[in-house]
Protein backbone atom coordinates (compact mmCIF):
# COMPACT_ATOMS: atom_id res chain seq x y z
CA UNK A 1 0.00 0.00 0.00
CA UNK A 2 1.13 3.55 0.56
CA UNK A 3 3.38 3.10 3.59
CA UNK A 4 6.37 4.52 1.77
CA UNK A 5 4.36 7.47 0.62
CA UNK A 6 3.09 8.21 4.08
CA UNK A 7 6.53 7.74 5.56
CA UNK A 8 7.93 10.21 3.09
CA UNK A 9 5.31 12.83 3.74
CA UNK A 10 5.72 12.38 7.50
CA UNK A 11 9.45 13.02 7.24
CA UNK A 12 8.90 15.96 4.90
CA UNK A 13 6.29 17.47 7.17
CA UNK A 14 8.53 17.15 10.22
CA UNK A 15 11.32 18.85 8.29
CA UNK A 16 8.99 21.67 7.35
CA UNK A 17 8.03 22.25 10.95
CA UNK A 18 11.67 22.36 12.00
CA UNK A 19 12.52 24.63 9.11
CA UNK A 20 9.80 27.11 9.96
CA UNK A 21 10.94 27.15 13.55
CA UNK A 22 7.79 25.73 15.08
CA UNK A 23 9.70 22.84 16.55
CA UNK A 24 13.31 22.64 17.64
CA UNK A 25 15.76 19.86 18.43
CA UNK A 26 13.97 18.97 21.63
CA UNK A 27 11.10 17.52 19.62
CA UNK A 28 13.56 15.19 17.90
CA UNK A 29 14.72 14.09 21.35
CA UNK A 30 11.14 13.13 22.17
CA UNK A 31 10.89 11.12 18.97
CA UNK A 32 14.08 9.29 19.92
CA UNK A 33 12.55 8.29 23.24
CA UNK A 34 9.73 6.53 21.46
CA UNK A 35 10.15 2.84 20.65
CA UNK A 36 8.20 -0.42 20.51
CA UNK A 37 7.87 -0.54 24.28
CA UNK A 38 6.64 3.07 24.36
CA UNK A 39 4.99 3.52 20.97
CA UNK A 40 2.80 6.44 22.05
CA UNK A 41 5.32 8.45 24.00
CA UNK A 42 5.28 11.50 21.73
CA UNK A 43 1.50 11.48 21.56
CA UNK A 44 1.26 11.25 25.35
CA UNK A 45 3.68 14.07 26.00
CA UNK A 46 2.11 16.30 23.37
CA UNK A 47 -1.36 15.62 24.81
CA UNK A 48 -0.14 16.61 28.25
CA UNK A 49 1.30 19.77 26.73
CA UNK A 50 -2.03 20.65 25.15
CA UNK A 51 -3.93 20.16 28.42
CA UNK A 52 -1.38 22.00 30.49
CA UNK A 53 -1.08 24.92 28.07
CA UNK A 54 -4.79 25.41 27.74
CA UNK A 55 -5.14 25.54 31.49
CA UNK A 56 -2.31 28.07 31.77
CA UNK A 57 -3.62 30.26 28.94
CA UNK A 58 -6.98 30.26 30.63
CA UNK A 59 -5.46 31.26 33.98
CA UNK A 60 -3.46 33.98 32.26
CA UNK A 61 -6.56 35.38 30.59
CA UNK A 62 -8.34 35.58 33.92
CA UNK A 63 -5.34 37.05 35.72
CA UNK A 64 -4.90 39.81 33.14
CA UNK A 65 -8.57 40.61 33.29
CA UNK A 66 -8.41 41.64 36.93
CA UNK A 67 -8.64 45.18 38.23
CA UNK A 68 -5.35 44.75 40.04
CA UNK A 69 -3.05 42.77 37.87
CA UNK A 70 -0.80 40.48 39.91
CA UNK A 71 2.37 40.39 37.85
CA UNK A 72 4.05 37.84 40.09
CA UNK A 73 1.25 35.40 39.54
CA UNK A 74 1.26 36.01 35.80
CA UNK A 75 5.00 35.54 35.69
CA UNK A 76 4.65 32.21 37.49
CA UNK A 77 2.15 30.99 34.90
CA UNK A 78 4.30 32.17 32.00
CA UNK A 79 7.33 30.51 33.58
CA UNK A 80 5.44 27.23 33.59
CA UNK A 81 4.35 27.63 29.99
CA UNK A 82 7.86 28.51 28.96
CA UNK A 83 9.11 25.37 30.69
CA UNK A 84 6.65 23.00 29.12
CA UNK A 85 6.95 24.46 25.62
CA UNK A 86 10.71 24.20 25.93
CA UNK A 87 10.42 20.58 27.06
CA UNK A 88 8.49 19.52 23.98
CA UNK A 89 10.39 21.71 21.55
CA UNK A 90 7.65 24.24 20.78
CA UNK A 91 10.22 26.90 20.02
CA UNK A 92 8.04 29.79 18.95
CA UNK A 93 5.76 29.47 21.97
CA UNK A 94 8.81 29.41 24.22
CA UNK A 95 10.25 32.53 22.62
CA UNK A 96 7.06 34.51 23.12
CA UNK A 97 7.07 33.41 26.77
CA UNK A 98 10.53 34.85 27.21
CA UNK A 99 9.34 38.21 25.92
CA UNK A 100 6.24 37.89 28.07
CA UNK A 101 8.29 37.47 31.25
CA UNK A 102 10.23 40.64 30.47
CA UNK A 103 6.96 42.54 30.21
CA UNK A 104 5.91 41.12 33.58
CA UNK A 105 9.15 42.40 35.08
CA UNK A 106 8.36 45.82 33.67
CA UNK A 107 4.83 45.53 35.05
CA UNK A 108 3.54 46.48 31.62
CA UNK A 109 -0.12 45.40 31.61
CA UNK A 110 -0.86 46.45 28.05
CA UNK A 111 2.28 44.78 26.77
CA UNK A 112 1.31 41.64 28.65
CA UNK A 113 -2.11 41.60 27.05
CA UNK A 114 -0.59 41.85 23.60
CA UNK A 115 1.86 39.12 24.46
CA UNK A 116 -0.92 36.91 25.69
CA UNK A 117 -2.65 37.25 22.32
CA UNK A 118 0.59 36.39 20.60
CA UNK A 119 1.28 33.35 22.72
CA UNK A 120 -2.26 32.09 22.16
CA UNK A 121 -1.73 32.45 18.44
CA UNK A 122 1.58 30.61 18.49
CA UNK A 123 0.10 27.92 20.65
CA UNK A 124 -2.80 27.35 18.26
CA UNK A 125 -0.41 27.22 15.31
CA UNK A 126 1.86 24.62 16.88
CA UNK A 127 -1.12 22.66 18.12
CA UNK A 128 -2.60 22.43 14.64
CA UNK A 129 0.71 21.36 13.20
CA UNK A 130 1.44 18.80 15.89
CA UNK A 131 -2.01 17.31 15.48
CA UNK A 132 -1.45 16.99 11.74
CA UNK A 133 1.95 15.40 12.32
CA UNK A 134 0.59 12.90 14.80
CA UNK A 135 -2.33 12.09 12.55
CA UNK A 136 0.04 11.26 9.74
CA UNK A 137 2.09 9.06 11.97
CA UNK A 138 -1.05 7.37 13.22
CA UNK A 139 -2.23 6.80 9.65
CA UNK A 140 1.15 5.38 8.73
CA UNK A 141 0.85 2.99 11.64
CA UNK A 142 -2.69 2.03 10.68
CA UNK A 143 -1.52 1.23 7.18
CA UNK A 144 1.44 -0.67 8.58
CA UNK A 145 -0.80 -2.67 10.90
CA UNK A 146 -3.24 -3.34 8.11
CA UNK A 147 -0.41 -4.61 5.98
CA UNK A 148 0.79 -6.90 8.73
CA UNK A 149 -2.73 -8.18 9.23
CA UNK A 150 -3.13 -8.82 5.55
CA UNK A 151 0.16 -10.64 5.33
CA UNK A 152 -0.71 -12.73 8.36
CA UNK A 153 -3.94 -13.79 6.69
CA UNK A 154 -2.07 -14.66 3.53
CA UNK A 155 0.38 -16.75 5.51
CA UNK A 156 -2.45 -18.60 7.16
CA UNK A 157 -4.05 -19.31 3.79
CA UNK A 158 -0.78 -20.60 2.40
CA UNK A 159 -0.25 -22.90 5.32
CA UNK A 160 -3.86 -24.08 5.17
CA UNK A 161 -3.38 -24.91 1.51
CA UNK A 162 -0.35 -26.99 2.43
CA UNK A 163 2.25 -24.55 1.18
CA UNK A 164 5.40 -23.06 2.71
CA UNK A 165 5.67 -19.39 3.55
CA UNK A 166 8.20 -17.65 1.33
CA UNK A 167 10.90 -15.54 3.02
CA UNK A 168 9.87 -11.91 3.22
CA UNK A 169 12.04 -8.88 3.65
CA UNK A 170 11.28 -6.80 6.76
CA UNK A 171 7.80 -5.63 5.94
CA UNK A 172 6.45 -5.84 9.42
Amino acid at each position, binding site marked *: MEVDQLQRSFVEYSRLLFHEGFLDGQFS*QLQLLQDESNPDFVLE*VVSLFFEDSERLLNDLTIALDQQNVEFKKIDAHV*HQLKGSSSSIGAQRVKNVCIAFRNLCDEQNAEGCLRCLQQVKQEYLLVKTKLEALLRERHDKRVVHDLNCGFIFQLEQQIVAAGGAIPMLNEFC
Partner: protein
Amino acid sequence: MGGGVATETHQFHVLAVDDSIIDRKLIERLLKTSSYQVTAVDSGVKALEFLGLLDDVDVDNTDSNSHHHKVEVNLIITDYCMPAITGYDLLRKIKESKLFKDIPVVIMSSENVPSRINSCMEQGAEEFFLKPVQQSDVNKLRPHLMRGRKSSQNHKRKPVEECLSPDRTRTRYNNHDLEL
Protein backbone atom coordinates in the same frame (compact mmCIF):
# COMPACT_ATOMS: atom_id res chain seq x y z
CA MET B 1 22.27 -17.84 47.30
CA GLY B 2 25.75 -18.97 48.37
CA GLY B 3 28.34 -17.02 50.36
CA GLY B 4 31.13 -14.88 49.01
CA VAL B 5 30.71 -11.39 47.68
CA ALA B 6 27.08 -10.82 46.82
CA THR B 7 26.75 -8.71 43.70
CA GLU B 8 23.80 -6.36 43.86
CA THR B 9 21.81 -7.25 40.82
CA HIS B 10 18.65 -5.31 41.48
CA GLN B 11 18.03 -2.06 39.68
CA PHE B 12 18.97 1.39 40.88
CA HIS B 13 16.00 3.30 42.22
CA VAL B 14 15.73 7.00 41.39
CA LEU B 15 13.34 9.42 43.04
CA ALA B 16 12.36 12.17 40.61
CA VAL B 17 10.73 15.38 41.85
CA ASP B 18 9.11 17.92 39.52
CA ASP B 19 5.90 19.91 39.69
CA SER B 20 5.52 19.92 35.89
CA ILE B 21 3.65 16.89 34.61
CA ILE B 22 5.39 17.12 31.25
CA ASP B 23 8.84 17.27 32.78
CA ARG B 24 7.97 14.41 35.12
CA LYS B 25 6.98 12.27 32.18
CA LEU B 26 10.13 13.20 30.33
CA ILE B 27 12.54 12.52 33.17
CA GLU B 28 10.79 9.27 33.98
CA ARG B 29 11.18 8.08 30.39
CA LEU B 30 14.82 9.16 30.25
CA LEU B 31 15.58 7.34 33.49
CA LYS B 32 13.75 4.22 32.37
CA THR B 33 15.76 4.04 29.13
CA SER B 34 18.77 3.65 31.41
CA SER B 35 16.92 0.80 33.14
CA TYR B 36 16.47 2.64 36.41
CA GLN B 37 13.46 2.03 38.57
CA VAL B 38 11.67 5.37 38.97
CA THR B 39 9.37 6.94 41.53
CA ALA B 40 8.15 10.33 40.34
CA VAL B 41 6.46 12.80 42.68
CA ASP B 42 5.13 16.27 42.04
CA SER B 43 6.44 18.16 45.09
CA GLY B 44 9.21 18.43 47.64
CA VAL B 45 6.69 17.64 50.36
CA LYS B 46 5.73 14.38 48.65
CA ALA B 47 9.42 13.57 48.25
CA LEU B 48 10.06 14.07 51.97
CA GLU B 49 6.99 12.04 52.75
CA PHE B 50 8.24 9.24 50.53
CA LEU B 51 11.60 9.28 52.27
CA GLY B 52 9.97 9.31 55.68
CA LEU B 53 11.45 12.68 56.54
CA LEU B 54 8.28 14.62 57.23
CA ASP B 55 8.01 15.68 60.87
CA ASP B 56 5.45 13.21 62.13
CA VAL B 57 7.13 10.23 60.46
CA ASP B 58 10.72 11.14 61.25
CA VAL B 59 12.66 8.02 60.37
CA ASP B 60 15.86 9.80 61.31
CA ASN B 61 15.00 9.88 64.98
CA THR B 62 13.80 6.35 65.36
CA ASP B 63 16.16 3.58 66.36
CA SER B 64 17.94 2.09 63.43
CA ASN B 65 16.61 -1.39 62.73
CA SER B 66 13.30 -0.49 64.39
CA HIS B 67 9.92 -0.91 62.73
CA HIS B 68 10.49 1.90 60.24
CA HIS B 69 11.74 0.45 57.01
CA LYS B 70 14.09 2.84 55.32
CA VAL B 71 13.05 3.29 51.73
CA GLU B 72 15.72 2.26 49.25
CA VAL B 73 16.63 5.21 47.02
CA ASN B 74 19.92 5.44 45.16
CA LEU B 75 19.62 8.94 43.72
CA ILE B 76 17.30 11.92 43.92
CA ILE B 77 16.81 14.21 40.97
CA THR B 78 14.76 17.32 41.58
CA ASP B 79 13.57 20.45 39.85
CA TYR B 80 14.76 23.68 41.41
CA CYS B 81 11.72 25.94 40.96
CA MET B 82 8.81 24.42 42.79
CA PRO B 83 6.11 26.02 44.89
CA ALA B 84 6.25 25.48 48.68
CA ILE B 85 9.55 23.56 49.02
CA THR B 86 12.12 24.38 46.34
CA GLY B 87 14.65 21.88 45.05
CA TYR B 88 17.27 23.71 47.09
CA ASP B 89 15.24 23.31 50.30
CA LEU B 90 14.80 19.64 49.51
CA LEU B 91 18.53 19.23 48.89
CA ARG B 92 19.29 20.84 52.25
CA LYS B 93 16.83 18.64 54.11
CA ILE B 94 18.31 15.53 52.53
CA LYS B 95 21.87 16.57 53.39
CA GLU B 96 20.80 17.24 56.98
CA SER B 97 19.27 13.79 57.26
CA LYS B 98 21.28 11.04 58.93
CA LEU B 99 19.78 8.39 56.72
CA PHE B 100 19.90 10.11 53.37
CA LYS B 101 22.81 12.54 53.45
CA ASP B 102 24.96 10.25 51.34
CA ILE B 103 22.37 9.77 48.63
CA PRO B 104 23.48 11.70 45.52
CA VAL B 105 21.18 14.61 44.69
CA VAL B 106 20.94 16.23 41.27
CA ILE B 107 19.22 19.54 40.55
CA MET B 108 17.42 20.46 37.32
CA SER B 109 16.52 23.99 36.30
CA SER B 110 15.22 25.80 33.27
CA GLU B 111 17.27 28.84 34.25
CA ASN B 112 21.00 29.22 33.95
CA VAL B 113 21.76 31.28 37.05
CA PRO B 114 25.39 30.91 38.16
CA SER B 115 24.70 31.91 41.78
CA ARG B 116 21.94 29.32 41.92
CA ILE B 117 24.19 26.63 40.48
CA ASN B 118 26.97 27.53 42.92
CA SER B 119 24.77 27.44 45.99
CA CYS B 120 23.37 24.06 44.99
CA MET B 121 26.82 22.59 44.42
CA GLU B 122 28.00 24.04 47.72
CA GLN B 123 25.05 22.46 49.44
CA GLY B 124 26.20 19.10 48.11
CA ALA B 125 24.41 18.56 44.80
CA GLU B 126 26.34 16.23 42.53
CA GLU B 127 25.18 17.73 39.25
CA PHE B 128 23.13 20.61 37.95
CA PHE B 129 21.24 19.94 34.72
CA LEU B 130 19.82 22.66 32.54
CA LYS B 131 16.35 21.86 31.19
CA PRO B 132 15.26 20.35 28.95
CA VAL B 133 17.21 17.42 30.34
CA GLN B 134 18.87 15.25 27.69
CA GLN B 135 19.88 11.61 27.51
CA SER B 136 23.49 12.77 27.73
CA ASP B 137 22.71 14.35 31.13
CA VAL B 138 21.09 11.18 32.42
CA ASN B 139 24.17 9.22 31.30
CA LYS B 140 26.15 11.28 33.81
CA LEU B 141 24.20 9.77 36.68
CA ARG B 142 25.69 6.31 36.50
CA PRO B 143 29.06 7.02 38.19
CA HIS B 144 27.24 8.65 41.12
CA LEU B 145 24.96 5.64 41.42
CA MET B 146 27.85 3.18 41.19
CA ARG B 147 29.79 5.08 43.83
CA GLY B 148 26.77 5.08 46.11
CA ARG B 149 26.37 1.33 45.70
CA LYS B 150 30.03 0.69 46.46
CA SER B 151 29.95 2.73 49.65
CA SER B 152 26.74 1.12 50.85
CA GLN B 153 28.39 -2.26 50.36
CA ASN B 154 31.23 -1.05 52.59
CA HIS B 155 28.72 -0.01 55.22
CA LYS B 156 27.18 -3.43 55.16
CA ARG B 157 30.51 -4.94 56.12
CA LYS B 158 30.76 -2.65 59.13
CA PRO B 159 29.20 -4.91 61.80
CA VAL B 160 31.96 -7.46 61.20
CA GLU B 161 34.69 -4.84 61.58
CA GLU B 162 33.33 -3.68 64.88
CA CYS B 163 34.16 -7.06 66.28
CA LEU B 164 37.87 -6.35 66.24
CA SER B 165 38.72 -7.73 62.81
CA PRO B 166 42.34 -7.34 61.67
CA ASP B 167 41.20 -4.58 59.28
CA ARG B 168 40.68 -2.32 62.25
CA THR B 169 44.39 -1.81 62.64
CA ARG B 170 44.61 -0.15 59.25
CA THR B 171 44.42 3.61 59.46
CA ARG B 172 41.48 5.03 57.61
CA TYR B 173 40.76 8.55 56.80
CA ASN B 174 37.09 8.60 55.93
CA ASN B 175 34.72 10.22 58.41
CA HIS B 176 33.02 7.05 59.59
CA ASP B 177 36.13 5.59 61.15
CA LEU B 178 37.33 8.75 62.84
CA GLU B 179 34.78 7.91 65.51
CA LEU B 180 37.57 5.94 67.11
